């Protein structure tokens, strides 16, 4: 069994790790989403397709979650969750092999069901994997190219290039996204036989509890948010904000002296 002092020290350390990764996520998460959105926007317009979307792999339970979408028929896909062991998206994700299907609506019931949940049943689907060095991290899916009943070999190749862009954007923020999993794996290795799975889960959940909405750290996180926002501003805007802050600071000092 792990001693109580050790556990407290471990919790503190883990919490610090969690905090740092949470800051990183705050800074990068938005950028990641915007990049992914720009990729699906570009893909749907280049192919003149009805919809384009990106699904990312999540664990516990194993699933693919559609994060961003574009195109006239794309909106319904965001938030859709599909299993990794069924459907076209599941196959492409599991095997790392892209494929395209025509005549989708005519039979394969498995994907039809998912399609109906999005409010749009496509005639054709092209799906390619998002592959990083470790394997698949998700899929990019394109529905119905206007003016063509199916996707050509060239289409599939082009789509793979967009998928590579998306993968690069995602892997940049991946480490932060997977903090919890990372904590769990590290703890299991360190604890070896001395902790049960339940104890590991307990420590992980204590360490990461409320990280995203920690009330006592409010002003600090608001500052982090604003710094993150400022990164998107131009040099002139940042100089202007700097000057305003300087005036405010001087005013505050004078007010204090008077008091």
């Amino acid at each position, binding site marked *: 069994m792990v001693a109580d002092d050790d556990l407290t020290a471990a919790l503190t350390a883990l919490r610090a790790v969690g905090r740092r990764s949470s800051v990183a996520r705050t800074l990068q998460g938005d950028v990641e989403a915007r990049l992914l959105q720009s990729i699906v926007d570009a893909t749907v317009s280049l192919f003149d397709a009805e919809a384009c979307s990106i699904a990312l792999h999540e664990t516990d339970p194993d699933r693919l979650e559609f994060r961003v979408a574009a195109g006239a028929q794309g909106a319904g896909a965001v938030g859709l969750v599909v299993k990794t*062991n069924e459907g076209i998206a599941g196959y492409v994700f599991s095997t790392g092999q*892209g494929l395209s299907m025509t005549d989708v609506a005519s*039979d*394969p019931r498995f994907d039809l069901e998912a399609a109906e949940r999005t409010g749009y049943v496509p005639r054709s689907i092209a799906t390619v994997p998002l*592959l990083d060095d470790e394997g698949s991290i998700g899929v990019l899916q394109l529905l119905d190219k206007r003016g063509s009943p199916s*996707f050509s070999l*060239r289409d599939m190749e082009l789509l793979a290039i967009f998928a590579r862009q998306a993968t690069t954007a995602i892997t940049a923020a991946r480490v932060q996204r997977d903090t919890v999993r990372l904590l769990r794996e590290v703890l299991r290795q360190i604890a070896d036989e001395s902790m049960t799975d339940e104890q590991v889960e307990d420590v992980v959940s204590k360490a990461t509890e409320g990280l995203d909405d920690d009330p006592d750290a409010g002003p600090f996180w608001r500052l982090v948010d604003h710094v993150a926002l400022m990164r998107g501003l131009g040099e002139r805007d940042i100089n202007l904000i700097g000057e305003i802050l300087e005036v405010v600071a001087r005013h505050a000092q004078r007010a204090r002296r008077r008091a």
Partner: protein
Amino acid sequence: MSGLDLPAWSEPFSNIAGLARRMRLRGISRDWAWGGSTGKGIRVGIIDSGLEVNHPRLAGRVVESVAVELDDEDAHVVPDDGKDLYGHATACGGIIVGMAPDVELVSVRVLGADLRGKGAAFAAGLEWAIDQGIDVLNLSLSSKSETLFPVLHDLVDRAYFKRIVLVSAANNVPAASYPSLFSSVLSVAAHGEPDPLRLYYNTAPPVEFGAWGVDVPMAWKDGGSTVATGNSFAAPHVAAMVALILSKHPGLTPFEVKAVLAAVADNPR
């Protein structure tokens, strides 16, 4: 290894004029190679998502179904339930039975909820099939894992010298993956001419043969059918041709089978 270093997978087969060959083996015709053959006596293993044994397009030709189970690091091969999780294996099996109606199919499922394309499961399934001495193996999957490189290399060599022909689909994205890049397998990419027997031989790497893989009508899950595109649907066309050849000429080595295919390919002269 960067995928961008490799030519795109479909490139050679979308410019047929570039495949012109002046030299080729003479005296080997398609009629000699497989005329009158139905694939009788040949077993073809489908290493994929599991065959749906009752699918009408498989016409009762599935003689055995197994699945790989991973238990920590150990892989076990166990009897399977004859279902297809995705439809992909059944699509491949249907293409083969459509061209070689008397083959016997063996289903080797290496995908599933807990397998998720794990290279170890793929390697274990491949090893089992080689140990069984199944004549032709259709591999629509490949692995880009560098760790598996030596394992797969040993396995395909073992198959080669056991006279087992491995037909391996090239990856659909231009990236290095194994075993399709090993020279002892028959690597296949797609062309778009709607003819199951239309075959091209490409002397330049990474892909040696081109077969129909664009808008191919095929069997799919739950007794269904669909039309799909991908290198993995080109590979079974070649696997079927190999089964037809081996049925008519038992005992040919993988090297000889390749030579026959190159000789009867549709490359312009």
